[in-house]
């Protein structure tokens, strides 16, 4: 599954700019949110793999839903879209390409994390 998302910027920079604008001078909202996201997404990825192995589709739906929201918060719109597809597949019991979607999720997440680490260092 090659796509547009593989090559272009994995982050919506306007969302990053928005997070920067929330800086209140005390602690960087951007750094806090990005750090939290790095933890949440790592745990979420592990859970998704385990849940797919177990065939626990209700759990996959919930995890994908949470990761969709979290990804959108840090501007990872491509990854959020992959999460939305996973969530829909799980809910509608269309499980045939779930494994492929999870691969796509892993790849996109790697790109997002790399981009975010640069953002966080820059901040």
């Amino acid at each position: 599954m090659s796509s547009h998302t593989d090559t272009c910027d994995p982050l919506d920079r306007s969302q990053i700019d928005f997070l920067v604008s929330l800086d209140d001078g005390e602690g960087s909202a951007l750094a806090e949110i990005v750090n939290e996201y790095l933890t949440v997404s790592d745990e979420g990825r592990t859970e998704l793999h385990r849940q797919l192995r177990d065939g626990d589709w209700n759990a996959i739906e919930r995890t994908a839903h949470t990761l969709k929201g979290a990804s959108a918060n840090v501007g990872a719109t491509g990854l959020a879209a992959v999460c939305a597809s996973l969530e829909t597949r799980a809910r509608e019991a269309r499980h045939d390409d779930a494994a492929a979607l999870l691969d796509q999720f892993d790849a996109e997440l790697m790109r997002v994390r790399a981009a975010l680490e640069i953002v966080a260092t820059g901040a």
Partner: protein
Amino acid sequence: MQILVADDDPTSRLLLRAIVAKLGHECLVAEEGSSAWDVLSSGGIDVLLTDWMMPGLDGPELCRRVRHAQGDSYTYVVLTTGLDHPEHVLEGMSAGADDYLIKPVDSFAVQTRLIAAARVTGLHTRLAQTQAELERVNLELLERSLTDGLTGLGNRRRMDEDVAHTHARALRVGRTYGVALFDIDHFKLYNDRYGHVAGDETLRRVAACIDLVVRAGECAYRYGGEEFLLLMPDCSPAAVLVTAERICRTVLDAGIAHGARPSEPPFVTLSGGVSCWTPGSPLSAREVIEQADEALFQAKAAGRNRIETAPSLGGQLQAAAAVG
């Protein structure tokens, strides 16, 4: 405003908290529905920004609880949800949410909701204040409608209610009650000599004397122009007489000069008639008062500044004396 963010996703909590803080509001956070409900229950939350899907209590359930428990203050509820779930918005609004936000949220969207929230919560606060004020004024008006404006004693309306209530209770539980009716001696001559303003002041002073003697559970009323009635629930016939005589003496001891009366002493005095209702008596409440009035008439005829007893009470007193 004090704002509570309820979301199980930590990035969403941080983002909303940063936005809310940037807009100058105080922000609390809860990681799931149950702890959000704990915070809401302790009060003081103006706005709840809640996620739809949470462990424990979900968004709609939280909405329902907030609306069910609503007291004097209003919590404005905004549901946060994904764009792909319009049915969530409808269910949430039906459950009691005021508005919704599509994730990921931005400052502008939050700011617009908070402006509406401030208006709505402010309106509810003013409404609650107005209602409390109305209730207070209503109570005050009720109290005034039962009080004699000049003397501060109960008025005729309160007397009618209390007498009816006391009589009904005495019938039901078989208790005695007493009534004493007083009249200021030669009050017309007093007014003619000293004027009505002084007359009013004397009515106030006599009322104060009566009030001084009255004990908890008993109640004094201004019955008519210069007439007063004392109602004594759960009171023995002998005690009714003792109290009436004490009132009579207290007024005399007040030493209010009355130089216009044709007889001694040269002070304001009371005549009084007392009566009593005892278990088994066929008398109605009205007849008990009529008997006190007749006794009062006898006190006047016998030379004033004295208490006379109604036949019902006299019999009781004689019986008590015979036993004693």
